Structures are given as C-alpha cells and as structure tokens.
C-alpha cells in the first residue's frame, strides 16, 4: 500500500503538485495566456506602426525602435525576474509584471511625443514582460516531468495563434478608438496576466533555523548582500562550461532565427511572386510552426531520444531548410518555395519546444529559473545582431541568397557548439551535481533530475 499515489492533489500543499497532475495543466493554460499576451501582443504592435508614423511625423526607423526597445527590455530584465522569483515567490512576481506591462501600455496611450512611447511602451512594458515570461516558464517546467516538452510546446503555440487573432483585433481597435484608445484597451488586456500569476501556487519554504540565521547574518554585511544577489541571479552559472556552451549555442541559433521571419516575404517578392503569394508562404510557415511545436513536444516526451539530440537534429534540419529557401525559388517554382517554407516552419517550431526543456539537463533543477533568465539575456544580444547583419548582406549582394545561407550556417554552427557539450554522445543524460548534497543520486533515469524545489527532496526520482 505504500507508495500509492494519492488521487487528485498532493497533500503537501505548497510544493509543486504531483508532477504532470491536474493543476500542472492549469499552469500550462496560464502560460498559454501570458505568452500570448507578451509575444503575441509584441508581434501585433506592427499595426500601430503606420498610425505612429503619421501622428508623430517621424521616420519609420524611429518608430520601429519602440518594438525593439520592448523586446530588448523583456530579455534584459529576465534575470531580474528570475532572481526576484527565487527571493520571493514566482506568483507575486508574475502578477507584478502583468501590472507593470498593463501600466506601461496605459501610460503610452497618453503619450505626446516619441520619447514617451520609448519609456512607457518600450521600457516599462518590457520590464513587465521580463518579470512575467521567465518565472512562468520555469514554474511550468518545474511542475512537469514526463510531459515537459509537450506542455511547453502547447503553451508556445499560443504565439502563432495569437498573431492570427490579434492582427484583425488590433486593426478593429485602432479603427474604432484610434491608437490612444486601442493602447488603453491593450493595457487592460495585459492585466489578464495577473490571474495567470495567481495560478502559481506559493512555494513551500522549509523552516531550517540554521540556514536562516546564517542568511540574516550575511545580509547585514554588504558583501553578503552582493553574494546573495549573485546567488539569486545564478551568476555562478557563467563559470560553468556546460551552461556557457549551451548559452553560446542558443545565441548562435538566435542570430539566424529571426532572419526568415523578417526577410521571407521580401525574398518571395524578389523572386517574382505576387504579394498574396508571398504572404501565403509566410502564413503557411506560421501554421507548420504551430504544428511543429506541439508535435515535437509530444514526440520528445516519449523518451526515445535524449532532448539534446532531438534539439540538435531539429536545429540542423532548420538550418538546412533555411539554406535551401533561396535555392528552391531559383527556378521560379512556387511549389518548391512553399514546400521548403513549410518544412522550415515545422523544424523551427519544433526546436523552440525543446530549447527551454534542455536547460534542466544542463543545470541542476534549482538553478533552472536563474539559468533561463540569464539565457534570455545572453540570447538577446545575439538576436539584435541577426536582422541588421542579414540586411547588410542583402544590401551588399543585392539578393537574399547570402543572408539566408549565412543564417542557415549559424544554425549549423549552433549544432556544432551543442555537440561540444559534455557527454553529448552518451546515450543518457549525464548526472547533474545539485547544489544540496544529494540523498540518492540517480544516474539511471533518462528524464531530467527533479524539477520541484529540492530543499527537502533528493534529485532523481525513480518513482515513475
């Protein structure tokens, strides 16, 4: 009778519930909603572009900095969100992030000059987004063990779906209420992140008196405070080879990742296809992107292969398909272009499901939150490089062949970097050294080490 799992919820309230349980799927829903309100909303901001250019009488480049500032702020403040979630709980941090994001948009609706928009819609909203995304992803990853990739894949499919629904919705809002009213309503919509944060159950903190005393003592000294901040930010990760290797691989991936999104339509038009045909290519790739996320998430949870191997495979395939894109349209064959784009969409969606779930195989579970935050920050620098570089290549060579080939090359470089991870060619994931002394290290399991707060739990739960 011992070892029988209870029915609905774990009696240990406060811990993440039994992995893969009912409430975990509620969290997936919360991640779905909050991701769509962060990234889906970010993608829909293009509708405001035309309105801002006309109203403020500014150049297109000045206006496009608003969205860039928002994305950069989201990624830059990710470590802050991770650190705050470690210090306090993830729930209040996400709720605060949702309030800030909404507040930024509401203040932006009162803007009278472009600087206001940079500070509110860019910086403040981006800060809110940074406090939302990383803690939510880390929480969902912590509450799943067997279905982690599927959960993330389902949640991230919201980005593509949100783009479909938000574009006409935003268009309607701008036509009915002008951009000021539309931004006000978007701020209200962003407040829906707050209920998502409320779904996160508070983490139980065990009362270990010795530790608390040591903590308060160290807090009194300045060095101790700094050390505490560094531990919250998981800065020690930057000295670890596996993590740095992985972060480098993801950054290389990021350089090339956005290029097809930005240039595919232009390339299709350049190859001689009409506007509708070019737009259709993009939409088709978007649909297979959503399918790829879900399918890859489901498949990788089957456990047939190591996550890192699957990620390398999808990255290689995506890189090859990007390189094939300009080749496929060389003969003027529309079918070939659409085919390669569908394949590119599927493989690039597939790899996004896995990019986060690999992190717990590289770092131990309690550092996942901080690791994700730092990862976002590092990859943001790379993402900023990608589009201008490809634009430059296009200007120099006159067509998109060079920029697509270079982006695909970055994908392949990323795979090669991943191959230098320790134990890459092993059949199972390597054991991870946790911060706490392990009770029973379990190196036999294929799935990553335990995902819940391990304060009083050993890594490697063999009870499946």
């Amino acid at each position, binding site marked *: *009778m*011992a*070892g*029988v*799992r*209870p029915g609905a*919820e*774990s*009696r*240990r*309230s*406060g*811990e993440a519930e*039994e992995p893969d349980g009912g409430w975990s799927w509620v969290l997936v829903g919360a991640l779905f909603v909050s991701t769509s309100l962060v990234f889906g909303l970010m993608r829909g901001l293009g509708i405001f572009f035309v309105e801002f250019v*006309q*109203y403020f*009488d500014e150049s297109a480049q000045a206006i496009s900095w608003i969205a860039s500032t928002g994305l950069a702020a989201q990624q830059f403040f990710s470590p802050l969100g991770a650190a705050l979630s470690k210090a306090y709980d993830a729930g209040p941090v996400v*709720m605060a992030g949702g309030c800030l994001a909404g507040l930024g948009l509401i203040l932006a609706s009162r803007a009278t000059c472009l600087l206001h928009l940079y500070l509110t819609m860019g910086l403040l909203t981006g800060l809110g987004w940074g406090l939302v995304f990383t803690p939510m992803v880390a929480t969902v990853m912590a509450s799943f063990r067997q279905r982690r990739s599927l959960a993330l894949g389902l949640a991230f499919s919201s980005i593509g779906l949100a783009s479909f629904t938000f574009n006409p919705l935003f268009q309607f809002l701008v*036509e*009915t*209420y*002008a951009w*000021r*009213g*539309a931004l*006000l*309503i978007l*701020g*209200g*919509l962003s*407040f*829906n992140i*707050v*209920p998502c944060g*409320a*779904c996160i*159950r508070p983490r*139980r903190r*065990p*009362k270990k008196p010795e530790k608390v005393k040591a903590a308060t003592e160290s807090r009194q000294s300045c060095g101790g405070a700094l050390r505490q901040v560094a531990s919250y930010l998981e800065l020690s990760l930057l000295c670890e080879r596996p993590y740095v290797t992985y972060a480098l691989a993801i950054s290389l991936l990021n350089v090339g990742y956005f290029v097809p999104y930005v240039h595919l339509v232009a390339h299709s038009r350049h190859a001689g296809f009409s506007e509708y045909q070019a737009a259709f290519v993009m939409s088709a790739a978007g649909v297979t992107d959503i399918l790829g996320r879900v399918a890859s998430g489901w498949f990788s949870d089957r456990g047939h292969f190591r996550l890192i191997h699957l990620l390398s495979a999808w990255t290689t395939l995506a890189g090859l398909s990007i390189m094939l894109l300009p080749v496929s349209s060389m003969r003027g064959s529309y079918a070939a272009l659409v085919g390669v784009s569908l394949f590119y969409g599927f493989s690039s969606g597939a790899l996004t499901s896995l990019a986060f779930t690999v992190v717990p195989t590289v770092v131990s579970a309690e550092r996942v939150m901080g690791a994700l935050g730092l990862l976002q920050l590092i990859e943001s620098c790379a993402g900023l490089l990608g589009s201008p570089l490809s634009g430059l290549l296009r200007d120099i060579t006159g067509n998109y062949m060079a920029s697509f080939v270079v982006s695909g090359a970055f994908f392949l470089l990323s795979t090669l970097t991943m191959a230098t991870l320790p134990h890459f060619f092993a059949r199972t994931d390597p054991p991870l050294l946790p911060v706490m002394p392990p*009770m*029973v290290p379990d190196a036999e399991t294929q799935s990553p080490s335990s995902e819940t707060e391990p304060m*009083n*739990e*050993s890594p490697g*739960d063999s*009870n499946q």
Partner: protein
Amino acid sequence: MMPASWMLLLLACCGHGNPKSVGQMLPAEPGGDFPSDVRSVFLKDKGHTDKMEVSSPVNLTLQCTWTDNKVDNITGFWRKDERDIDNSHVTLRQENQQFQLQRMFIIKDEESLGNYSCVFGNEAKVDFILTVPHMGDVRDKPVVSYVGDSVVLLCKMDDNKPKPKTWLWFRANGTDKEQIDTVTEPQKYQMKNDEKSTKLHVYNLTHDDSVLFYCSAVFAIGAAVSHLELKVITIYEPLKPFVAIVLEVLVLVTAILLFESHRSKKAQAQDASGDEVANAEAPNAEPPATTTVTTSSGESNGLDENPSARQRNVENVAQQKQ
C-alpha cells in the same frame, strides 16, 4: 474663304486620314497651342467603355472603328453627356468592312470633361469617359480622434498619376463646403504638402469637428476631390471596454485566490488530522532516509517534520494493517 482654309489645315495636319470615309469634321473653335493626342478603339461587339484621365488641356482626337458586315451604310454621330452634338451626323460607307468615326475635341476645362460617345446608328457605340486623375486609397472608414487632441488627415495621388499644381482643403458646413485657410487660423490648421500628397493637421479638436473634410488636387484642367470623415470622440468611449476588462481581471484574480486559500486551509486541516493519526500509530521516529511525495491513502505527510520519518511510519502502519 473660311471653309477652304479650314480644309487646307485639315489636310496639312491630318494628312494621313482617309478622305473617303468622310468621318472628319473640324470643330468650330481653334485648337490653341495645346498638345495633341489620339485615342483609338476597335469595336468588335455592341459597346465598349474607355476611361481616360486628363490633367492638362489637350486637343484630343477620338477614333472609333467598327467591324460589321451586316449593313452597307450607317449614320454615325457623336454625343457628349447624353446630348447629341450638333452637326456631327455623317453617313458612313464601308471601307474594308470597317466603319470609322473620328473627331477632334478641345479639352480645356472641367466642362469639356465628361462622357463622349461615338454612336453607329442604333447598332453600336463606344464611350470615352474623360475625368481628372483620381486619388487612390480613399479611406472609407472615418478617422477617429479625441477631444483636445490633434489629428492628421492625409490625401495622396498614386505614383503613376500626374502631379497636381496645388492642394486645397475644405470642410463641410451644413450642405456647403467652406475652404480652410491655414494662414488665418494657424493654431487650428496646418497644411504640409508633398509633391504627390498633402497632410492637414487639425489641432484642438472639438465635437464640432466631426464633419466631412474634402481634399482637392488642383490640376490645370480642373480639380479632383476626395473626402475624409473625421469622428471626434471623448475618452469615455474606450474607457467602457477597458473598465469591463479590468473588472473581469479582478473577478478572476479574486476567484483564484479564494480557491487557493480554501484549498490550502483544507489541506492544512487534513495535515493536522493526519498528524494526530500518525502520532497515535507510530510513536517511534526513525532517522531520515530517502523520501518521495507519495503517501498512502487516508493519511498525509507532516509538513514540517522529517518527511522520511513520516514515510517510514506510514509504511509501517500500512504493513501493520496488512
């Protein structure tokens, strides 16, 4: 002497014409020093419409050629805007199974634009619709803005159309249009013009500004007019859906937090009862060992004691029960 000199002029400048088809007839007024242009249409069936945009004065020769082998003679004439043009009726005879009508028109002002038709008896006709260049991209939805805010109204010509000489703006006043003078009211209106586009900035909007605005591209021959509707609303309009959404968020958050606190109270109560049960059954605590989350049914782990001890105790209890 006058008719003879006109015939000479005709032969000089239109020497390639076919004197046998007897389709030409000069208009009474001189052509001036406008440029010349020719527009031809070959008609195969009953009717055809040809649209043409004219931006500056021109001597336009319109030619209609109709193929038909049913009749030998037909009366051809010209119409402008559904009114027959006097002295334009001619009797046509077939030339290579074709009837041809040709006439030169002086298009010099807005009145000379319109619908010109060459009619072959009751059988066939060709419509030439002459207009000023149209403005593309006419926005059918109203432009929305707020009381006290400013707005920019934009009108532009397509790239392949000619450049207007100047731009004018009007606003509707009842059923009239009154011209907007940006010089006399600089704090209310400002006009910024490009080659092919014009922007009207309107400041300090009030509800009275919710009218139709007309932008007019002035060409040498006339003006093209397009209109924009401006709608001025107060901040309360978007505030209504905003408040609705905020209320929905508050309701959701309250519901979730209530659910959470209810659930955690229930769990704490069960933990308390579980503690009592476990303490009664197994007073000997064991040193800590590995632990998992699992419990046997009916009992719960103690929350702040050694969970492993609890596990062992529970296992003991379970084994004892069995």
